[in-house]
């Protein structure tokens, strides 16, 4: 068993952190993990992406051209990476910033207005945590409880941000639950 998730958006959206939290949670669940950033001559406001590979045996190639999952936080990321997702995979789109649909029949689409929800809970910068919660709730890659404890650990040096992020997690999880019952 192996899954690959690509997180993509623009610099400043906390893309690398989303991946790190998922990788950390999967490690704590006993999986083998690798977190691979895009690194290059990047600049603030440019594109940012990373890939998290989760497996039940040592991870071979850490470089993934065709991930099972894509979390697209902005339109350029969706346009660039949607065609690379494996058939049968899933794409989460941040509908707050992506006004179009995924034009693929062979993947599942998860729609989450991550930025709007983050604004409602009090800080637009929590959009990454909203999307991560929705993604994990939908895919079941790791228990959400584990994501929660990893978010707490990640923000342990800035404890004042923890309640906000906990709210973001709840709302992200609820966003996909509502969609399922609708």
């Amino acid at each position, binding site marked *: 068993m192996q899954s690959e998730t690509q997180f993509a958006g623009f610099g400043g959206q906390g893309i690398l952190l989303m991946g790190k939290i998922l990788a950390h949670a999967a490690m704590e669940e006993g999986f083998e993990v690798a*977190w691979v950033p895009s*690194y290059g001559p990047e600049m603030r406001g440019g594109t940012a992406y990373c890939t998290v590979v989760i497996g039940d045996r040592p991870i071979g*190639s850490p*470089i993934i051209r065709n991930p099972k999952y894509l979390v697209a936080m902005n339109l350029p990321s969706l346009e660039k990476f949607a065609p690379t997702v494996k058939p049968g995979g899933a794409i989460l789109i941040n509908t707050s910033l992506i006004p179009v649909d995924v034009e693929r029949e062979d993947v599942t689409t998860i729609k989450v207005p991550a930025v709007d929800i983050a604004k409602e809970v009090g800080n637009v910068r929590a959009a990454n945590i909203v999307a991560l919660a929705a993604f994990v709730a939908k895919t079941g890659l790791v228990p959400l409880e584990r994501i929660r404890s990893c978010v707490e650990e990640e923000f342990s040096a800035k404890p004042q941000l923890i309640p906000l992020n906990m709210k973001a997690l709840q709302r992200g999880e609820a966003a996909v639950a509502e969609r399922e019952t609708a």
Partner: protein
Amino acid sequence: MGKVLMKGNEAIGEAAIRAGCLNYFAYPITPQSEVAEYLSRRLPEVGGVFLQGESEVAVSYMIFGAAAAGERVFTTSSSPGISLMSEGISYIAGAQCPAVFVNIMRGGPGLGGILPSQADYLQATKSIGHGDFRLLVMAPAGVQEAVEMMMRAFPLAEKYRNPVMILGDGLIGQMMEPVEFRDDLRIEPTNKDEWATNGMDTRGDNRRNLVKSLYLDPDELNNHNLRLKEKYERMKREEVRYEAYRTETDYRVLIVSYGTMSRVCRTAIDLLAEEGLPVAMIRPQTLFPFPEDAVREAAAGKSCRAVASIEMSMGQMLEDVERSVQGKRPVRWYGKCGGDVPTPEEVIAFVRSLID
């Protein structure tokens, strides 16, 4: 302590501290600047010394100074920076001082690029500087292995009184993987009183220790070179390390690959096995000394039709593979430079082309 998720560059810095090295001098360069960033914060916490040199050349002599004084010391850099350090490395090898150098390789030549590469294989294993000397070179294929090699590097440098190099690529530095720092890998420093300029007061004797690489008398220099040669021969006898993968099968192709590239090859080998084509791999963990015997024996396997040296360079390790196989099987090269790591699919296509 359990596993922690760490970036390769940070884990390399932490591993050095866990190995008991509290001296780090460096000059920043992508893709390994996080080592300096991490240690600039971490070393003062543990009473160590972090110093950014004015250039890589200066850094190499700071390393020489600390090593000559008997301190555990290391630096990290990337390809162009390592070239600048090569003069100091030659002096350190000539003066027989232990030190650890980490090269997180990027593409070249010249400034090249900043993405992962294995283009410094020949430099590291054959002749990193002027004169007749070798480094002991280890090549990790992941963050955990980088940590373990770092911890082994210091005692090995002391065992041979010779510089040791960890040769990683940009991905090893940038990737995050779970790591565990094993206390049992920590080996206390050897007593260096016999040769180090650590001060007569420290040693409590009246002998003057002299650290030098200058031998003007031809016989003396020849004898010095013979002593160095004996060390490199001993490394070949005692320090060869490699991993054999699926060599118990009736493999038709033997891959030789190291570092990040070997992980891509492992995925390719697993996929080929599912397709019914058995392929094996020897993954050198030491590049000098090179696992010649292991490669030769595996290449001689009854079902083996060809040997492939797969590397992120234009065929550098290929020379060692050919030397090891001794013409008993055809040896072919496959690789890419520039930072675009070959995919498992590309490796599979190449391997298939060898037997069709």
